[in-house]
Each structure stands twice: as C-alpha cells, then as structure tokens.
C-alpha cells in the first residue's frame, strides 16, 4: 500500500473514530527510544517529538513518528540509519494506527495503573504489519502516561543489514515508547 493511501486511511479512521463528544487525549512530545544490542556495539537513538493520540470512548490509538527526528550519539550512525536503513527521504514517517483492545477492562478516566493490550497496524519504511503489544497506562490527575517496550524484526520492515556491519546492528531492535497524553480542548 502506498504511503499516501495509508495516510488517508489513517485520517479517515481518526475522523470516523473520534466523535464530537469523544474524550481525546494527545501529545506532540512523545518519546520513542530505539535500541540495538550487537556484539560490536550498542546503538541507541531518541525521538522526542512524537505525535500520539487516544480516544477514550473508542480506544483508537495512533502514533506518528518522523524518522529524521531520531538523534543518535554518533553522526555516522544517524547518517546510515536515515540513508541506508529506513530511507527517510522516501519514507519520512512511521505510523501506528490501532486500538486499545482491552478497553472494556480498564477505565482511563480514573486515576490508576492499567495493563493494556494495543493492536493495530504499524508502518515503517512503507511496510505495514499487524502488531499486538502490551503496555501500561498510568492515569494521574488528568494526565495519561502510556509506556510500552516491544521488539521489532528489522527484516519484517524490509530493513536490510549489510554483511559488513552484521556484528554492529542487531536484527531485532528494542523500542521503548513513553507518551504523556493530556486532554485535547478543541
């Protein structure tokens, strides 16, 4: 599916899913950490300007990440990540469009800590995969903090590691998500 089509579907999904009365929570400063542990070196990168939103009525949950926003310790790693691996010039965004599957078991309008299951479509480098991941929502005084740690296989998203650097980059990378969502006042 082309990127434009995915974006249009995502937007229709959102417009359809977010009713007028919906309690929408969102952030533009979500954090995503990327971590690769390999024999030769460990690679870590952070993106601090991640868009995310959740609709408490429907459980719709979305992310949008700009790939060029990942900051690496080494400039060379950042260059390789953008130019060779995720090809951010062709695929500038990564997205997740899904739902909190166990919304009926949790009440995100009340203070507390809730285990959540999130399922949906993750798109990286133009490749969309269905994913189901676990996470935790902590609700405190009107703020919803969502955290999740999961792993992705780079090959699933058509990210190829050249043989020459196979000891430098893990085939499976750890992703940490940390978002503090506040009520949207439209």
């Amino acid at each position, binding site marked *: 599916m082309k990127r434009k089509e995915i974006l249009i579907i995502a937007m229709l999904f959102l417009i359809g899913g977010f009713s007028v009365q919906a309690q929408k929570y969102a952030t*533009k400063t979500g954090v995503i950490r990327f971590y690769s542990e390999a024999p030769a070196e460990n690679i870590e990168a952070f993106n601090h*300007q991640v868009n995310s939103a959740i609709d408490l009525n429907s459980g719709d949950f979305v992310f949008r990440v*700009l790939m060029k926003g990942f900051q690496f310790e080494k*400039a*060379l790693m950042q260059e390789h990540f953008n130019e060779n691996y995720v090809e951010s010039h062709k695929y*500038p*965004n990564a997205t997740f469009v899904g739902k909190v599957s166990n919304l009926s078991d949790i009440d995100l309008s009340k203070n507390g800590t809730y285990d959540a299951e999130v399922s949906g479509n993750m798109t990286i480098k133009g490749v969309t995969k269905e994913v189901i991941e676990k996470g935790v929502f902590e609700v405190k005084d009107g703020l919803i903090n969502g955290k999740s740690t999961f792993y992705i296989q780079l090959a699933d998203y058509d990210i190829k590691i050249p043989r020459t650097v196979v000891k430098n980059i893990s085939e499976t990378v750890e992703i940490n998500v940390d978002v503090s969502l506040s009520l949207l006042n439209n």
Partner: protein
Amino acid sequence: MNKWIKIMLILVAMGAVGAVIGYVFVYNKSHPDFEKKKADFTLTAEELFKFYRSDQASAELKYNGKVVEISGVLSEIESIYDLTIAVFVLDKGLFGKEGIRISMLENHQEKLKNTPQGAVVIIKGFVTGYNETDVVMEHGSLIN
C-alpha cells in the same frame, strides 16, 4: 635493515594512520554544528507551513533534512523534559493547534524563554518533516 622489513613497517604505519583517520573523521565524526551551518532556505513560517499543506510530497523533497531559516510570530514556548520548543501556531485541526514546532539547541533555550510570546522572531533549524499536524524542526537557534 632488510628491505622487506622496511616495506612492512611502512605499510603497518600507513595502516595505523588510516585507521586513526577513519576512526576520528568517519566512524567518530561529529554531528554538524547547526548553529554555524548556513541556511539552505530562508522564508516565513507561514510560507513553509503552507507549502507542506498544499504539496506535501514536493515540500518533503525540498525541505526535509535541510537547514531552514524561518521568520514569524512566536506563538508559544513549550518546556518539557530538557527540551524547549518554539511554536508557531498557524492553524487549528483535529488535534488542536497546528503549525511549526522547533526544538531549540541547548545554548539557545534561555534566550528563547526570555523572548516574549507574540514577538516576531527568526529561527534557524533542521527540518525533520511534516507529521500531518506540524512541520517539525530540531537544533533550533534564535537568530533574532
């Protein structure tokens, strides 16, 4: 000294110099100095935002990954974690305010915080892209 030993020593020395150069200038090269980097483009915040809105594909090709200097009315300053973000609000959408968001370089954070909201400012930064709500920039420096 044996001729071959001399050649071997020279080759080893050349290899060592090459390795050091490779480590310092390639593997361990520093990130660009975005404060000193010359802007690839200069335009108003509104022009940049409108371009992404009207023709996203062309705007991405032209501006993503480039250093851009924009001018406009500073709408808000956000502080979160160790970030200070300059916000140019230019529209309102499904997810609230939309426009341009620039995460500032550490040495420009105080300068921005001391700038009154509503002031006309010029900020230079690295464009990471458009996320359907905002044009996002990093490594911002306040020019004026």
